[in-house]
């Protein structure tokens, strides 16, 4: 659990329960978690925190999760972006060009949240290696 405090996560979801239960897991894991209910709020957080990771829902009120990631990448290209979606989804070419791969897309409900934290750590390691 320790050693994860360096990893900061911005969690974007308009559903309170999803934010709460995924957030609780991430906090227990030792990550520093920031919460946003939509893309606009999340953009501000990303600009302030330049987080290690940002997990965004796909369907958000206002701008979509895709549009949010595209804009957030412009602000903080060092952040690893992950998508969390309840719908059928195929990664767009734009998001692929930002370095996202199918492994960065998580389908709801995530059966085992450890798969998410594993990915967060893997992306954080990659960032450590490249930055």
């Amino acid at each position, binding site marked *: 659990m320790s050693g994860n405090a360096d990893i900061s996560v911005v969690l974007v979801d308009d559903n309170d329960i999803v934010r709460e239960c995924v957030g609780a897991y991430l906090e227990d894991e030792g990550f520093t978690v920031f919460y946003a209910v939509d893309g606009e709020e999340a953009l501000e957080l990303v600009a302030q925190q330049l987080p290690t990771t940002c997990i965004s829902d796909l369907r958000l009120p206002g701008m979509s999760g895709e549009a949010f990631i595209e804009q957030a990448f412009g602000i903080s290209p060092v952040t690893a972006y992950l998508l969390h979606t309840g719908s059928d989804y195929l990664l767009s070419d734009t998001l692929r060009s930002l370095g996202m791969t199918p492994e960065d*897309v998580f389908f709801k*409900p995530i059966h085992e949240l450890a798969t998410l934290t594993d990915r967060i750590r893997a992306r954080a390691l990659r960032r450590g290696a490249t930055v």
Partner: protein
Amino acid sequence: MNFQAETRCIGESNYGGLVEDVRDISELKLATERLEQFKMSLSAILDTLPSIIATVDRDGRIELVNRRFELLSGVVARDAYGMQVETLLPQFKDQLHHVKEVIDHKVPVTHELILHRTVATSRYYSLHMYPLISENSSMAVIRIEDISEHVRIEEIMAQTEKMSMVGGLAAGMAHEINNPLGAIMQNAQNIERRVSPDIPANHVVAAEVGVSLELVRAYLDKRGIFDFIGHIRTAGMRAATIITDMLHFSRRGEARFEKVDLASVLDEVLKLAASDYDMKKLYNFKNIRLVREYAADLPSVSMIVSEVEQVLLNILKNAAQAMAGSGQTEAPHILLQTTLREGMAVIRIVDNGPGMDEVTRVRIFEPFFSTKPVGIGTGLGLSVAYAIITKGHHGSIEVQSQPGNGCCISVMLPATSLDVRGGVS
């Protein structure tokens, strides 16, 4: 053709008449030749048409038949002449019986979708009877078409339509259900972790409120709370698996296609089947004689291996279960066969189990259709198999079966290469 001229000329015996005779005979010969030629091309036309054709009189006696009629009845035209059409085509007896009415009322009659079964196949026919258009004739033309392929394509189309509807429904439902389901599963996981001694914060908070985490855990354990939480997780997982399965009906997904050797996939599936709990304990899989007939010249096939394995395992399980539950006297066996047919790799799984009736056969790929008792099967297995093969792999899947005659499921996969997104390249 002037036959009267001929009679007249023969009666006269002068020189000029002789010349006329010669000319008339050559005209006659020409006419006969033309008639013969006409007859030949008429029968060529009849033989070329892809229908079974016969003309019969009011009593059903045959006057003329074409080649396809000969093939179906097994009787050549020469022998068929004058015979009862019902005798030659007993499978159409019920329909042919009405030929009298067709002739008497001068109204054509059509029968669609006549199912004719033999041990090996079932075929669909349409049968038409037309009164012959001629003043003084009381004949009828019978035309029979083999419409099996047409019916098969219609069945496939209806199935595809049904599945795309279910796909839309499943995607909508999944989206609504996934968040609450996630909350159930993930919060059960959170609860387990918040009383775990492995997370330092738990000890800190316990001390803050003046309890020991060990005692809290002992209490929860003694009252079976950990079991309850475990059940919540298991149940949530089961529901989530059903939702994930249903998403196959619509999911375009990230396809991980790879080119593999079909024989090794089948062998792997047999291994999986042998180690499957239900197969071992309930369906006595090791007692089933497995016959493998793999084509040697099969090219490698592009597929998402785990998905095709899921499909084949499901088919094997259904076969094993059907045979285990039927109390059949014949020793159970399953044939696994691969062949190459018209650019498709064909996998046939043939069992000698109890088979199924037509009602079951046409509904077998329907989601939530199950012949198993409630709680045993979700009725999703074969419908997911259908979606995986047709939607995910651009292949097709078919069932042939009759009660008491076993079951044959054919899975056809394109032997051409597929790119990573699942399109045929």
